[in-house]
């Protein structure tokens, strides 16, 4: 029995910031002090505050150490593990709180992520120890498929992939569909820039997804499942493979599960990472071994999935919710959230907030709480002006709408979408023309090229945005953007094209004045668009250190060392900002407005 338990976050972010090295140092330090048998180390899935990694959570006290470096480990072992004195300088905010007292955690409600950061995802026994596979055994021994569907329907669970289709209804459609065999597909082709909810679940609690899939298979009458996961998620694939082989060994996948006559097995399909393959019909084509291209619906996969067979396709997070609904009941689940959006939602919080990372919140929480209480507000004292929610299919909502709840209908009504859970917080240093351009660049690159509006239309819209960003736009362009945006939304073949104009349309709706500033005044108010800014030296601050001149690629920054002030020759300047970044005295100012050539 170990005296101390160290949970070491082994999510992708913490691994990138050196969690493996920390573990090696820890093992070494423990051996040196003769504590090897007394301290148990568990590598867990993502704990959430990725910005602060590598993270170490020490029990029994429940103390969070953040940004742990291998060099810190010996001090933790000697001071904390041996003498019982936690190392203050490595604590979250320098305090010793219980995790529930840290606002980042206290406003969250972890259901789907409850096991992430708590158990070893590579050990099925840890999952079982915290109640894993209880739901499956209950379903197989006590419930009929109809009971299961009824329970899911009553819970109000809706698809977490973005569109929010009622999950129970989808299950029922597949159950009633004619044809056999039937398939279950877990859509793990998460592709929104900056979003990693599904990856964290697969890496941190893979059995929860397998259990959800098995329950769904029982409910709809399927025996074979696919998990479609992108090759860019090697750790998720590896942990899934481990989980699947362990589940098979324990009789929780395969023939005659839990000694019933129910059989179900799962196969991993690794995708090449095309964004469009997150669209269900393109994903199905890819599973079949064809080019990842969508096809018109109807027929929906519930009637015609892979090889023309009835298929249930749900997102990772949707499946991960299922076992909780079965064990704790539909009433419990539907008690969380708003009238039409029940349960919790996982978000990848990114951008200009203090605490970025992975969070799970009850539906109905306001955007303000999400940004300020959990996110901790802007890190640099700047004013937050918008959130981009829903990724390339979503939209930008201004600060004046931060009272909106996290709710499918409320977000859609205001031009954004719930999406799969990407949230990017934008402060006043973000240019909305540039943000709109960024997302459209992404979707036009990721368009499969099958249908005309998406293939050609997004490129034409992008061309207009690029012109506006250069200060060459006209007010007519804004009308054209809206006309094309509506047309592409209505006429595109699949969800990629149908939602691609959203970031542009919502930015035009709430930040039209920023577009107009680019057009009328040839000015980028946020000072982002390179053609609409210029750099000047503030003479009083310049110390003639020469760094700007050395950084400048075109010889525009000029002067003699030790002889201030330097100057920027605008005719040679390309607005790259190298001097601005190089100046240690803040003597170079970025000013909105085109330089006078």
């Amino acid at each position: 029995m170990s005296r101390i338990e160290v949970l070491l976050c082994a999510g992708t972010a913490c691994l990138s910031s050196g969690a493996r090295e920390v573990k090696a140092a820890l093992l070494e330090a423990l051996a040196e002090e003769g504590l090897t048998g007394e301290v148990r180390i568990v590598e867990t899935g993502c704990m959430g505050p990725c910005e602060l990694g590598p993270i170490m959570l020490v029990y029994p006290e429940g103390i969070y150490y953040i940004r742990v470096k291998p060099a810190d480990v010996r001090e933790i072992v000697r001071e904390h593990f041996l003498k019982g004195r936690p190392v203050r300088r490595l604590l979250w905010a320098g305090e010793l709180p219980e995790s529930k007292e840290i606002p980042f955690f206290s406003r969250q409600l972890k259901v789907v992520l409850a096991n992430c950061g708590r158990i070893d995802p590579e050990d099925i026994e840890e999952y079982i120890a915290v109640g894993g596979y209880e739901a499956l055994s209950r379903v197989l021994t006590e419930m009929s498929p109809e009971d299961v569907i009824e329970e899911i329907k009553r819970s109000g669970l809706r698809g977490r992939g973005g569109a929010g289709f009622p999950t129970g209804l989808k299950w029922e459609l597949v159950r009633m569909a004619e044809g056999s065999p039937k398939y279950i597909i877990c859509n793990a082709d998460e592709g929104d820039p900056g979003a990693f909810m599904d990856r964290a679940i697969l890496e941190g609690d893979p059995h929860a997804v397998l259990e959800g899939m098995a329950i769904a298979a029982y409910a709809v009458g399927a025996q074979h499942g696919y998990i479609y996961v992108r090759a860019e998620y090697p750790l998720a694939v590896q942990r899934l493979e481990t989980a699947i082989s362990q589940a098979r060994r324990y009789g929780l996948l395969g023939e005659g599960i839990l000694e019933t006559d129910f059989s179900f097995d799962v196969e991993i399909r690794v995708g090449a990472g095309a964004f469009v393959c997150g669209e269900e019909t393109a994903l199905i084509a890819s599973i079949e071994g064809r080019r990842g291209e969508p096809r018109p619906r109807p027929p929906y996969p519930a009637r015609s999935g892979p090889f023309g067979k009835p298929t249930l396709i749900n997102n990772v997070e949707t499946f991960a919710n299922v076992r909780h609904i079965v064990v704790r009941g539909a009433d419990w689940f539907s008690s969380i959230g708003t009238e039409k959006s029940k349960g919790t939602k996982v978000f990848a919080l990114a951008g200009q907030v203090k605490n970025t990372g992975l969070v799970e919140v009850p539906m109905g929480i306001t955007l303000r709480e999400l940004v300020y209480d959990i996110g901790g507000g802007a890190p640099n004292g700047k004013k937050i002006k918008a959130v981009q929610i829903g990724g390339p299919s979503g939209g930008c909502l201004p600060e004046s709408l931060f009272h909106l709840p996290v709710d499918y209908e409320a977000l859609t009504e205001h031009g954004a979408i719930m999406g799969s859970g990407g949230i990017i917080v934008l402060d006043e240093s973000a240019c909305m023309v540039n943000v709109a351009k960024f997302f459209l660049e992404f979707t036009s690159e990721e368009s499969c090229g099958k249908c005309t509006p998406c293939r050609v239309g997004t490129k034409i819209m992008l061309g207009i945005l690029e012109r506006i960003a250069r200060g060459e736009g006209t007010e007519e362009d804004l009308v054209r953007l809206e006309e094309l945006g509506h047309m592409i939304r209505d006429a595109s073949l699949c969800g990629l094209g149908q939602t691609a104009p959203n970031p542009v349309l919502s930015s035009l709706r709430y930040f039209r004045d920023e577009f107009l500033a680019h057009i009328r005044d040839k000015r980028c108010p946020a000072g982002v668009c390179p053609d609409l800014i210029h750099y000047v030296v503030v003479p009083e601050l310049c110390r003639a250190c020469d760094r700007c001149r050395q950084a400048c690629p075109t010889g525009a920054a000029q002067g003699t060392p030790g002889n201030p002030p330097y100057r920027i020759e605008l005719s040679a300047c390309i607005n790259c900002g190298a001097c601005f970044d190089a100046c240690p005295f803040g003597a170079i100012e970025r000013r909105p407005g085109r330089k006078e050539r």
Partner: protein
Amino acid sequence: MITLKLNGREVRAQEGQTILEVAREHGVRIPTLCYLEGLSPRGSCRLCLVEVRNWGGKLVPACATQVEEGMDVVTHNERINRIRRLVLEMLFVERNHICAFCVSSGHCELQDLAVELGMDHVTLPYRYPGLAMDLSHEDYGIDHNRCVLCGRCVRACSEVEGAFTWGFQGRGIQIQVAPDLGGPWGDSETCTSCGKCVQACPTGALFEKGVGTAAQTKRPEVILEVTERRPRV
């Protein structure tokens, strides 16, 4: 039998028929481009979009959508006409469709559509990507600048000839049809030189070598003639 509404008129149809088939039976013309009788529908050009009023006004491709009981279909209205016109403009500006120098001028489905939809000029910026031609095949050539990416050649080659020579490569605006794994058509090991792709092509993208400007006529109906003679499985 299924009963549905077509432009406000009640019509009867067989189960499994597409909206396009039913509309044609009742003398309603819906413009099409990627659709070709005898091939599976692709639903990609978006010219045949029709509005299903009782599906919340959703636009669906008539060629690829089967009729359902009680469906309320509108084939022409201001919204649909505007979208068709914009789709057609997009196809015209995407590559190069200067008819005066095209082998298919006067025998071109894209050109005919412009006439049908009254598209006498475009309001979108031309892209003119200047794509390379492939003249390596002994009998045929392909000018990607004239290609509208309808995929009729791809389907004719795989579904009718069974050669699977043509496919798509690249994505988004970079997409192109390509023989085998790319590379010159003349080097293709799978091409049977049957010419079905050329006959199926609606524009001057695929052509017979040696024909002059406006001299390339095509018989896309051969695809249906061939498939109709085959025993049904």
